[in-house]
């Protein structure tokens, strides 16, 4: 939501001062029909967005100040900021925030390093790059449901293939999904497995776009490979990589389905992320008021991240 403010302001609706694509054709009728077209073409999409995204959020905002419950009847009482203070001061929420932070930072860091490394290795190959890239992209295309279910099966301590392979190597069984630390690590690993290709894809796009004459110039200067990487490759790929990283961070912050299927927050609540906690508040106790406030706070975090993302994106486009 970069700018929801205009929705509430009430200006006369003069817009779309149609710029004629070619100079010297500003006949009044054409102007009007252009403006009409612009309105007719953008308003259906905007209306659907307003109805399905903005309106629900405004409603959630209203509910977040009340004690409304979706199952218990009766009129909602205004609590004003009571829900918000309860959430912000709750140690339960702090714990989930920490879990989410560890998860987001861990997963995004790991997939950035791995994704960039793979992209770098692929970009150095002459043959089979098309095949390699296509193969690497498979995990990213799978539904989180399929990914979650299947990793749950593979990580099963007793019957899972991962422990079976570790066993063949003479290593002991690991409690992937039921250890307090390992469960969160497993979550990070599975997310990394699925989304490393994403970073790889974008990094590869950046790496291939580096003009070769820069390297040729550097090689004439007898620059070391590390020097070339640091001074040519990284600065050129970095802006694109940053976009990918921020994009992943937002997605990881929103994550729900993988937790739901892989660990359902366990053991105890040690893999409960903020998303999962909101779900429990909203659908187990039907504390709709609290859940709405919780959701609005999450949306605020997303807005900040999105703003960062869009700012970098804009910068990238301007360059």
């Amino acid at each position, binding site marked *: 939501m970069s700018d929801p403010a205009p929705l509430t302001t009430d200006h006369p609706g003069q817009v779309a001062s149609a710029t004629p694509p070619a100079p010297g054709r500003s006949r009044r009728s054409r102007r009007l029909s252009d403006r009409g077209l612009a309105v007719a073409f953008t308003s259906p999409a905007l209306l659907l967005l307003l109805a399905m995204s903005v309106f629900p959020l405004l409603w959630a905002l209203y509910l977040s100040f009340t004690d409304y419950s979706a199952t218990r009847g009766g009129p909602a009482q205004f609590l004003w900021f009571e829900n918000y203070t309860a959430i912000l001061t709750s140690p339960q929420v702090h714990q989930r925030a920490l879990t989410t932070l560890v998860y987001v930072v861990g997963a995004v860091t790991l997939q950035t390093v791995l994704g960039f490394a793979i992209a770098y290795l692929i970009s150095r190959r002459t043959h089979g790059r098309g095949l390699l890239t296509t193969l690497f992209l498979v995990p990213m295309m799978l539904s989180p449901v399929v990914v979650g279910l299947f990793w749950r099966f593979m990580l099963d301590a*007793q019957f899972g293939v991962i422990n079976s392979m570790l066993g063949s190597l003479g290593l002991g069984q690991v409690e992937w999904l039921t250890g307090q630390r390992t469960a969160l690590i497993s979550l990070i690993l599975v997310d990394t497995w699925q989304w490393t290709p994403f970073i790889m894809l974008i990094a590869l796009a950046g790496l291939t776009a580096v003009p070769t004459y820069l390297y040729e110039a550097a090689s004439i200067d007898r620059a070391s490979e590390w020097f070339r990487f640091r001074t040519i490759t990284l600065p050129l790929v970095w802006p694109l990589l940053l976009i990918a990283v921020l994009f992943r961070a937002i997605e990881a912050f929103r994550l729900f389905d993988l937790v739901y299927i892989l660990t359902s927050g366990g053991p105890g609540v040690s893999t409960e992320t903020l998303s999962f906690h909101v779900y429990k508040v909203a659908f187990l106790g039907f504390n709709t008021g609290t859940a709405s406030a919780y959701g609005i706070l999450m949306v605020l975090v997303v807005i900040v991240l999105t703003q960062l993302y869009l700012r970098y994106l804009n910068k990238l486009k301007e360059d």
Partner: protein
Amino acid sequence: MRYPQRRGRLSVPGRKAGLAAAALLVATTAAACGGGQNDSAPKAPATIPELTKDPLTLSFIWFDWPPAHALEAFANAEYAKERPNVTVKVKTVPNANWHDAMFTQFAAHKTDFDIPILDSQHIGEAVTNGNILDITDFVKKNIDVKAYNPYLLAAYGQFPQAETGKRDENASLYGLPLLGDTWTMIYRKDLIGDKPPQTWDEMISVAEKCQADNPGVSGLAFHQANGSDAAAVTYNTVNGVYGGNLWNPRTRKIDGVLNDAAGQEAMDVLVNKMKPLTAKGSGNWFIDEVNAAVAQGKACIAFNWIAASGGLLDPKQSTLGATREEILDKLGFAALPSQKTNLVPLGGMGMHVSAYSPEANQAEALNFMKWFEQADIQKKWAAAGGVPSRTDALESPEFLDAAPFNQVYTDSVPRMRDMWNVPEYARLVDIENTNVNAALNGAKTPKEALDDIAKEQQSVLDSSSGKGGGGL
């Protein structure tokens, strides 16, 4: 890509849409505030109204497991004989989603099912919100209540909740039993002998010995997951056997009751004596994982719901034998061992009538319930793989011969204890699940976990007067 740098004025579509959204907001907010005042359950008629002759689909909602498919097949085969114009449909949702699927529809005051199959513990929430019909008068007039163990009748229908083992004849009824259930002990006759252990302590030491004698086979397998009611039922069972109490219903006290000396001992037994005998990484096991462990020959003694044990006898799923008989040579089923008490967990579900169903469907639902609770139909249900509730059906050869664990159920009926069926059940059980699961997986010490459960559950009960606030 260029953007004009002017800003501030609202586009025409934006403005129109804004107005439309505002109008919608006002309308729906009014509706949201206006709806849902009926806080007491509407009453079903004492006599079944005249039934329709038009084609009618009677819909149930349950979670996806074999009894749900058995019920649909059974009802379509048998009920159609009496009511040929009726088709029975049992809708199924994933177990993890069962409560949400029913109660979100209840909350909408519009259900696509006529008969919700509620867990006994869901009754409080449904009754308090007026989601299901009060069938007290209907039961008085149409059901032979003396044919049942009183507690079975109370457990799936009575609210406020009955005292364990009893039924309050003056209390209102909101449902009738559909499928009885409890835990059975599943033991390997070839590993620990034909005679099942009689006390909990004995069971633990037998499992310990079995595990030591048979490398690769773990002593115990039971539910430990933090979803549904898995870990909570496990603790509640041990708590009951060791003489603990979940709460004091009269004073609504949990803190100080659940975590008293008996409760602490039970948690200690569960975490420090039983958990070490389970397979590594079994901390997220529920029904299907326990079944898999038994079928793969990886457990000496296991605990599971009777209604979920049918698959164990299927040679296609099992490595214990190539035929049902071969499997039964190795697997024994027994009622739970006792210790300080002989309590066992009450499972199973009742049939209820959605308050939001059309009248013709509600009438049909009542008629179905009356039909279902007849003696001969209960026996046929038993033969079709169901677990009946009428005492005569429970003692009939049709039931007892249908499966090796059915005798266990009949023996366990007088020993049952339920959890709380208050409206806050979903949150109480979640608190218990996550904390017991944490204790079983070493994320909390047993004492810490139990005290946390007591404290958090108490605060849920105490704050229950509030509505949609709180709940963190």
